[in-house]
């Protein structure tokens, strides 16, 4: 039940909360921009009248700047000092977020406007948590908040030792729904769900450590995702043992000295028999239909109608329907079962060939007619096969056992039990397959590029250094290293490539123009990426995300020595996004720098570029 209410201006909202003595508050808003706006508006509209608190904030921040110069002159500086309010979200750099957390913790702020993502991890409580809606913003619209998200948020309400009571307030908003919030407050917390998956890094490391696919498989089977598998396996194994025991017991009681495999053999043969029976045509119409399916094809002339007088050249056949041309050139479309006769020659579908075809059929139709099979001929194959199976069933029991009659009866009686046994065996195999398959696919791809020896189940020398490369898409970077791509590049190109690789796929880091040489290095890298992706696709692996060229532009500028403020200004990207992207780029470069034994040149380069990228304020 939505309760759509006009959203209050942030200053009005804070005023209302203040009237009830509900400050300080954390106000959750759906987007970063709204947080920034709300904080600025509130600061403009409500100047904190308490001068000593303003001074305290100023003093606090001045001290903080001494250790964290990167927050000096931040565009929200005045908002905080004057209004005692701040915005806090992933668009800010870590140092800025830290100073706000500290100010809040010191009791110097009245309100923080934050996105829901902030609720995870950092701990800065307030007396009141304000929700402006019951929905969360996604990349393409809205979705309802989950119980866990709401719990993360309300977890901030009430400061231990500083509040007797904490409050959660549903404030006016277009996506407000008090009923839903009431429900969510009472909902049990979400369950932990495993996200276990196969990765190249895990596969290479485990295979190198344990030396066999079986061990890797065993570890995968122990994951939380497959915790039920262990139980299911145990259960299935138990039921398999039980049936095995039942079968052996019955054979023993009847004094039949035959192995269990005979009983299973009968089950399998009976299975084959049933399938053959099913495939065997039972009526003349069925035989004729199957025969038509086989012989009617484009390029053949058929006779339509019971007598098969009207001739049609077939051009197309789909889902039991046939299209073609009549002798007068008009087109025809009809169900395949209306065909009465089929002629053997196959003509090319060109005008003169078609005409020649009709002429030939008119002249020598009789001798060119294909003979339809009779029922007895049609099922000859199946009948033969059935006879062989029946023979095998007959001779299943060894010829010289005593009391053969009795044993035969027992074996037949046991056949449903044997069916259970086979079903359980198949189920176990299927479970094992499900766990292992994602690893197997990756193993095959790695084998193609020479990082592991599939037959020997061994990591190659190449694979060993790839295992050490803890990076997104290690195979792509490994191939780029092997092809010597990194040896021929300038530092800024290396920075661009690694940034394009590690950045979030669809995040915008501005539209800085790329020099031709950077573009050409990126496209060479993409070529390598395509080779890898194509092989991955061949093996049923999802295509990798695209390179982020916009990230490359920002990183090239940064690695070329531009000032932080300059990069922020030129890209118009959010500081927090740039910070995270550069930080991850630097980490990836350090990974490559670690390969100094196998790729000294690239490692040296990566190390130098990492130094350029990981300079203040990135650290």
């Amino acid at each position, binding site marked *: 039940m*939505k309760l759509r209410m006009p959203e209050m201006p942030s200053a009005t909202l804070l005023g209302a909360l203040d009237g009830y003595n509900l*400050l300080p508050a954390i106000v959750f808003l759906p987007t970063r921009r709204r947080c920034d706006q709300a904080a600025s508006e509130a600061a403009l509209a409500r100047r904190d009248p308490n001068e000593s608190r303003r001074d305290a904030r100023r003093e606090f921040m001045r001290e903080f700047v001494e250790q964290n110069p990167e927050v000096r002159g931040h565009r929200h500086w005045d908002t905080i000092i004057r209004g005692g309010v701040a915005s806090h979200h992933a668009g800010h750099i870590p140092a800025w977020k830290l100073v706000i957390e500290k100010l809040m913790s010191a009791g110097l702020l009245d309100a923080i406007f934050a996105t829901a993502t902030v609720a995870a991890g950092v701990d800065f409580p307030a*007396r009141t948590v304000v929700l402006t809606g019951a929905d969360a913003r996604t990349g393409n619209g809205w979705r309802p908040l989950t119980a866990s998200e709401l719990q993360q948020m309300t977890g901030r309400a009430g400061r*231990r030792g500083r509040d*007797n009571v904490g409050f959660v307030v549903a404030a006016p908003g277009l996506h407000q729904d008090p009923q839903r919030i009431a429900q969510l407050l009472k909902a049990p917390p979400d369950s*932990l769900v495993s996200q276990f998956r196969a990765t190249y890094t*895990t596969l290479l490391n485990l295979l190198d450590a344990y030396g066999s696919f079986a061990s890797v498989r065993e570890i995968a089977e122990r994951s939380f995702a497959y915790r039920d598998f262990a139980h299911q396996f145990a259960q299935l194994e138990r039921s398999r043992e039980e049936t095995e025991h039942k079968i052996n017991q019955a054979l023993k009681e009847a004094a039949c000295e035959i192995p269990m495999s005979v009983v299973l053999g009968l089950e399998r043969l009976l299975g084959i028999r049933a399938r053959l029976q099913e495939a065997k045509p039972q009526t003349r119409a069925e035989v004729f239909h199957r025969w038509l399916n086989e012989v009617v094809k484009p390029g053949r002339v058929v006779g339509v109608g019971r007598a098969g007088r009207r001739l049609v050249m077939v051009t197309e056949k789909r889902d039991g329907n046939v299209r073609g041309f009549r002798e007068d050139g008009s087109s025809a479309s009809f169900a395949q079962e209306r065909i009465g006769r089929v002629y053997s020659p196959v003509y090319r579908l060109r005008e003169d060939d078609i005409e020649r075809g009709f002429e030939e059929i008119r002249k020598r139709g009789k001798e060119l007619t294909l003979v339809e099979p009779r029922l007895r001929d049609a099922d000859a194959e199946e009948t033969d096969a059935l006879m062989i199976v029946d023979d095998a069933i007959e001779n299943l029991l060894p010829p010289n056992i005593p009391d053969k009659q009795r044993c035969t009866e027992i074996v037949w009686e046991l056949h449903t039990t044997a069916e259970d046994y086979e079903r359980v065996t198949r189920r176990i195999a299927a479970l094992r397959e499900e766990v292992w398959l994602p690893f197997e696919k990756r193993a095959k791809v790695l084998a193609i590029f020479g990082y592991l020896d599939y037959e020997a189940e061994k990591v190659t020398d190449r694979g060993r250094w790839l295992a050490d490369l803890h990076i997104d898409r290690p195979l792509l970077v490994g191939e780029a290293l092997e092809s010597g791509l990194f040896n021929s590049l300038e530092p800024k190109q290396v920075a661009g490539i690694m940034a394009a690789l590690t950045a979030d796929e669809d995040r915008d880091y501005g539209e800085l123009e790329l020099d031709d040489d950077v573009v050409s290095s990126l496209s060479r890298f993409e070529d390598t990426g395509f080779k890898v992706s194509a092989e991955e696709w061949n093996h049923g692996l999802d295509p990798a995300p695209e390179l982020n060229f916009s990230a490359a532009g920002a990183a090239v500028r940064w690695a070329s020595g531009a000032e932080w403020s300059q990069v922020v200004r030129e890209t118009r990207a959010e500081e927090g996004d740039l910070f995270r992207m550069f930080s991850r780029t630097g980490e990836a470069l350090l990974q490559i720098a670690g390969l100094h034994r196998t790729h000294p040149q690239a490692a040296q380069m990566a190390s130098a570029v990492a130094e350029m990228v990981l300079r203040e304020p990135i650290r």
Partner: protein
Amino acid sequence: MTFVRRNSRKTWDKRKPRGRRGQEQSTRKAGHHEANERSTRVVPQSREVKRLLEGIGTPPRKPFQPDEFQVEALAALEFEDVLVTAPTGSGKTWIAREEIRRLLESGRRAWYTSPLKALTNSKYQEFIDEFGAERVGILTGDRKENSDAPLIVGTTEIYRNQLFDSLRGGSEVSADLVVLDEAHYLADEDRGHVWEEAIILTPPRIRLLLLSATIGNAHEFAAWLEEVRGVRCGVIGGPTKRPVPLRAAVLLPDKRLLPLLNDAGKLNPEIEILAADNADRRRLRK
């Protein structure tokens, strides 16, 4: 067992040099005073709202006393792995810190993993303040300091990578305790698998302490831990009550404040009426 009061303070208080403490306290007092001053200018309130807001304000200062679940968790750690599930801010870190203190004092070693670099950095600072810089090291993707220290703080990925290295014949992970902070990251779509690998590959001789947000299937999770590690795992739920009780309210555009729930814990009927009105109005507009 004795518990030291000064441990209850949070990271950001600690980052300040000790000499400035006095000043810091006075700033806090200013904020404090302000809050009390504000509480005197309150709008006229209905009885219902008065009840909703009853008791609002700051409690008198009490000496720090560990919660029952914290003591329980510490005791359990002597014998088994422990999974603590409690909301943020309820004092999970205190458990880890006291256990680490105990180990360090007896010359043993610990690894503390966290999912985010920012958290790792702030924990590093916190532990330096607590145990002294020479006893703490940090390992993240771009930071490596004092890596032979008896207490290592780092990201979960780096810890997992160390496990890989030791399995492949590198040096052993030398820790007697591994703390996995924010263990519910196991359910993170991109990175969750790293937590599982870390848990599966941590040798059973190393004690595991998992700190997690509240989750619905804690016992199922612990059962898996026991199975996969062959070590008993205790589950310690957080405090049964929130450390600070929570009340829910709805603020209306006319600045009226209504309790979200009635005494029976059901949706306040007044809000239901408002919502029905709201729906009617929307229908009429159409």
